[in-house]
């Protein structure tokens, strides 16, 4: 039972939301609300399924861990790229000329172990 509790928690919580949504349907609400909340219930069940997929072959608890040996160096340029992309909405899409290459550099750094840090 314990092995199933982690994804069961997520699934149970999603179902509680589904229950509240079904009671709302009795009272009536705008159709957008059903799509919105129904989408969230579906998302939560998807998360529960992901947890189940991740755990069904392994143990519920860990004896061994995979610890990243890479630094988080790509995170800051990636975040700046996202900021510039956002600012392009206010100050013009020319900012994408800076943002997109920066994002590409960040992704490249993330993909290349030599630049992102070394695997120990």
């Amino acid at each position: 039972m314990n092995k199933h509790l982690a994804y069961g928690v997520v699934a149970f919580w999603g179902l509680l939301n589904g229950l509240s949504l079904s009671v709302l349907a009795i009272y009536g609400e705008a159709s957008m609300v059903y799509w919105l909340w129904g989408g969230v219930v579906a998302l939560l069940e998807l998360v529960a399924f992901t947890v189940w997929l991740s755990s069904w072959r392994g143990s519920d608890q860990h004896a061994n861990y995979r610890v990243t040996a890479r630094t988080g160096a790509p995170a800051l340029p990636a975040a700046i790229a996202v900021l510039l992309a956002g600012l392009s909405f206010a100050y013009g899409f020319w900012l994408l000329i800076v943002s997109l290459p920066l994002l590409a550099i960040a992704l490249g750094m993330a993909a290349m172990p030599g630049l992102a840090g070394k695997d120990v």
Partner: protein
Amino acid sequence: MTVPATSDPADTRTAEPDGWLGWLTTTDHKRIGLLTLATSVVLLFLMGILALIMRGQLAQPGEDLIDAHTYNQVFTIHGSGMIYLVMTPFAIGLGVYLVPLQVGAPALATPRTTLLGYWLYVLGALSMLCGFAIPSGAARSGWFSYPPLADSDYSPGAGPDLWVIGVAMSAIGILLMAWAVLWTVLRKRAIGMTMLRLPVFSWSMVVTCLMVLGAFPSLLAALVLLALGRGDPAIFDSNVWNIGYQHLFWFYGHPVVYVMFFPYLAAVAEVLAVFCGRRFFGYKATVLSLLVFAALSMSVWGHHMFTTGQASNDYYSLTSILLTVPAGAEYFGMLGTLVGGRIVFRTPMLFALAFIPQFLIGGLTGIMTGTPVIDYHVTDSYFIVAHFHYTLFAGSAFGLFAAVYYWFPKVTGVMLDERLGKIHFWLLVVGANLTFLPMFGLGYKGMPRRVNTYSSVDGFGLLNLLASCGAAVLAAGMIVFAVNILRSLLRRRRGGLAPMPDNPWNAHTLEWATSSPPPPENFTPDRPLPPITSNAPLLDLPMAQKEAEGANPGKTAQPGEPAGPAERSGL
């Protein structure tokens, strides 16, 4: 690289650069957590200064400290900052720091994505605050920025755009961090740490992160709608999208209140148990009530829309009132822990004790405003301002300070000064109640929120003056807090402090089993994970040791299953 749960740091330390660059590019959950916590505390002080400006403006009738245009920017950024940039990130930051330690993991799941989340949060904050530096000023349509007020016809200039970008970035950042925390609890627990042995704080992070996952995408959808509306305000000519925005926004906006509540409630629960020297009363009922509370909190958003006449008021009123059931169970757990406990009145405990009645005032007035007949009377008045400041400041922020005083020795290896802590506490108790209690009266007398001034004939003068005096007392308390933090950190840097035990409070949970501050891999051969036999493993330890030595055979301190040899082999 695969490491055992208890590992030799020499084998596994990540190749991080030293110095500030190491901090900026770190994948250590403790550093990311500390960066998040420190950033949100700095922003807390900034938002406090904005609050003081507002209270200065409202201290007397007809005051002319700032004009209406500036006042609108100040209350918008104060509210937005406190919610998007302070209380929510601090709650998630606590989870980033503490959850791996509490579940016995050496690291957080997806640490690089978590760091990306931190940077998105920081740059989002900068974007929002940069509004003050541009000629048209910062956003000025409130923390929920309803259209059509927030569209480009009624709120021209780049300030509101910067606000949209800032809120979106910080929300995405929090989503990334919450995912990492949730996955860590669900999939990275150490041997022996079953779900029903998780500390209350880790459980609170599970439900908090589930709410973030369920509710924050809705905020992003609302912001996209607002951004489109700022590009083409004609979108908001249709009432469908005005009301649609409110649904999208409040589907996020109400659950986020609990995102800013559950971690602090759980911090209070941990403090109560430790400073009563006993287990938290009603652990399983509290866990269940957290799950139910969180699910119900997803269903009450429409009570913010009662007065639109376009929400199903009966339903939202019913679910809002139902919230009292799980909330009552949690209060019962806290009071049950106090009854029969050997209470020690240290600073974290004082903040935890004050949290209980003060949050109750905020919670009960929330139930009042969750009733349409009362809400129609008090909506958009100072009664609402008083209500949410009792929940978020007199409640959650007191939980935040309880957490800071409780975990500061764990994080830094030094204690905060107890005398300064108590001065801080009393100034905050007096200041919070002097500031926010008169606001109920102001709301009852009809003072609307978000006004920059009032006339002397309105009769609001005395209560506003009291509230402004309270704000000054709060400011004094926060200065004492800042002095206490800086003094302790300086004393640590200079050295010469008496060595502090790793577990100065005799706390119960796993983060206190390792050194203070913890090593990079959290648990080492010198400081291995103890057997995890319950949600308070360090409380079980003396009994387990006695049992191992042959005394008291067959008896354990806790009804949870003791870890067997097979389980312990992995520790």
